[in-house]
């Protein structure tokens, strides 16, 4: 036995945490990029940009951690998924390049600011779409022979992956608009609130479509969700989704500022739980489980030590950084 079953579970939990942290944190700043074209040029856009400028780099670091931890703890999964989704990965990386440099470039060059705003919006959209489609590609299954990807370079493209791509774009946009409800005021906030309603509805429809389609991809998914006694547990997920949505609508109507964002987050967490229910213990469905893909126990243990020491510190100073920039972003100071 070269791997340790318990360590594998711990590492799946850590990577799941990193991916979730990434999705909710970079999700809202990618989401702001996606809704950026609908914001008015000038104060609204500047406010939106400033609501994420001090934190986006930290948010994106979770993506690097997710990838890095996957490579370290489950190298086989990393080495199968990335070649299988090659064009998606390249598109995502290039999207992140464009939106990442736009943060600085748009202030350095007011004459060409409209171009950098387009780069910011398009880069965010492409990155989000690629991430959503990658998720779909993993769910629909990856063809593996002898520990390696054995499909073509466009296998990931299907109606299902397009659907998951759109779902993630809508979901990120929802997170972004609710973040703006929290962080801005005035017309910008009113605008964000209106958007959040529409995006909430859109996200719900897309989620329902993905949830309806998923059990048809593999019989295993179907059994996981609908066989007795599993259904008693799994049925809680859609029930909680309904409760969350009700709270979301109610809080937006009431003019609450934080609750809509928190409910959008809750929606993502529930989605994530739903995904885990579908695929666990498979890392690369339909063939590779977490135990097949695991790195040896020495590697996982060595990293676990690092995570145990550093993760509390990271959460500590990241929280502090958010705390320093708490409150509304004013539109003051622009000249």
């Amino acid at each position, binding site marked *: 036995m*070269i791997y340790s079953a318990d360590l594998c579970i711990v590492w799946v939990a850590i990577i799941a945490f990193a991916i979730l942290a990434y999705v909710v944190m970079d999700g809202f700043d990618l989401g702001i990029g996606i809704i950026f074209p609908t914001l008015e040029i000038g104060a609204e856009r*500047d406010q939106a940009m*400033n609501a994420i*400028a*001090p*934190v986006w*780099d930290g948010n*994106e*670091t979770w993506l*690097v*951690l997710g*990838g*890095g*931890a996957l*490579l*370290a*703890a489950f*190298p*086989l999964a*990393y*080495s*199968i*998924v990335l*070649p299988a989704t*090659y064009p998606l*990965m*390249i598109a995502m*990386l*290039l999207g992140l390049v*464009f939106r*990442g*440099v736009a943060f600085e*470039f748009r*202030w*350095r*060059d007011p004459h060409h600011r409209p171009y950098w705003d387009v780069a910011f919006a398009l880069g965010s959209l492409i990155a989000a779409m690629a991430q959503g489609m990658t998720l779909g590609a993993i769910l629909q299954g990856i063809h593996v022979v002898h*520990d*390696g990807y054995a499909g*073509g*370079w466009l296998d990931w493209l299907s109606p299902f992956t397009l659907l998951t791509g759109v779902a993630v774009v809508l979901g990120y946009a929802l997170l972004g608009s609710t973040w703006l409800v929290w962080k801005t005021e005035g017309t910008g906030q009113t605008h964000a609130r209106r958007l959040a309603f529409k995006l909430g509805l859109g996200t719900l429809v897309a989620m329902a479509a993905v949830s309806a389609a998923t059990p048809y991809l593999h019989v295993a998914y179907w059994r996981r969700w609908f066989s007795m006694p599993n259904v008693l547990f799994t049925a809680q997920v859609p029930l909680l989704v309904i409760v969350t949505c009700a709270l979301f609508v109610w809080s937006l109507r009431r003019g609450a500022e934080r609750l809509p964002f928190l409910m959008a987050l809750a929606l993502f967490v529930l989605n994530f739980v739903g995904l885990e229910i579908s695929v666990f213990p498979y890392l690369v469905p339909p063939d590779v489980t977490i135990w097949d893909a695991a*790195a*040896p126990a*020495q*590697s996982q243990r*060595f*990293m676990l030590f*690092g995570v145990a020491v550093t*993760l509390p510190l*990271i959460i500590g*100073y990241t929280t502090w*950084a958010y705390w*320093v*920039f708490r*409150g*509304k*972003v*004013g539109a*003051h*100071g*622009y000249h």
Partner: protein
Amino acid sequence: MALSIDALVLARAQFAFTMSFHFVFPAFSIGLASYLMVLEALWLKIGTAVYLDLFKYWLKIFAVVFGMGVVSGIVMSYQFGTNWSVFSNKAGPIIGPLMAYEVLTAFFLEAGFLGVMLFGMNKVGKGLHFFATVMVALGTLISATWIISVNSWMQTPAGFAINTRGQFVPAGSWWPIIFNPSFPYRLLHTVIAAYLTTALVVGAVGAWHLLKDRLNPHARKMFSMAMWMVAIVAPLQIWAGDTQGLNTLKYQLVKVLAMEGDFDPSPSGAPLVLFGLPSNEDAQVHGRIEIPKLGSLILEHEPNKPLGGLKDYPRNRWPTVAVVFWSFRIMVGLGLAMLALGFWSLGARLRGRLYDSRLLHRAAFVMGPAGFFAVIAGWVTSEAGRQPYTVYGELLTADSLSPLAAPAVATSLAVFAVVYFTVFGIGAAYLIRMMAGLPTSQETEPPRIPQHAAGTTPAAAIDHDL
């Protein structure tokens, strides 16, 4: 088979291209973060406004450089998987944890404190702001430490075993893996290179402004600081490079032979080939200009000590000699030019002519980008010299590639080229424009911009507040 060879060549080109672009940014931001830390410390201790002015001036530049470094770096961390998946699977259990440690101990640290460093001067106290700057500088150094450890392990692998699935796994302790034989030398050489690169850029910017106004206090201060740095660090770097060379001789003899252009063994002492055109096919250096015995004297510190030749090894284990040979000469040539600039500035300083010698200022200006070229050239020497292996002596590059279709890699390479030249070209233009401007003077405490009670400092504020 032809198809897979094409994909291999394309994937290598793509990695080399994206890596070379990326490496420019950390080479600058590692040095700049430390420089900013020194400037802020001097401002806090001495209180002279010129240090604060310079801090704010270089901070804006740092923000742009750092941003480009982050986005080009994320590309690198995923390219291991997209293009080198077999390598990732086989070496993942060793290099994966080291890179995960880099993320945990360095990337989060930099990113977490960068927001406060860039936008938080009016939000937190001076002491806390300085702490944030120190954390960012520390983060860049920790990051360099881990990634150089990974790279060094690929050059001089140690402390590993190979399991039944063909993966490199730790044989026991992690100590010999992290502190593999070439790691300390490589780390020293790389970090000093980053400092030297930054000093040359700062020096060139100072020199440019001195050429326009030799009395400008900001230009004088940055030029003086940069020239101290070059004068002290350039000789150190040549020493560090020499120790790394000796380490390479011990662990990667074939690479040294390629650097030296020694195809034939030299049983009675190797010459130093100064110039020539090495050819793998002809197994010789055409039109060579050489100094007898000097090669052995430099490498072995004995003129008559025998040295092997590439012909002692099978041809398919040779790197492309011309690339290694010439990139090495470019690096060494630039290093010697830096040494000369350092001594020249020292002489001018002693004669009290540091701010008056226009020729020195012109030279310092021309030398501004030399660090970047030297860093890339050195990197090429090291990495091209590692070929045909990814893990030296253990795993061939040809056996490391992802199962990719050549058209996919060709397309991505073309898109990377277009995007990188456009985006980073424009970024470089912005940087040059910022450096062409002078630091703004704030003799008194900076006027605080009007702020909302609990408001965030707007990003735009660094434009005029800093």
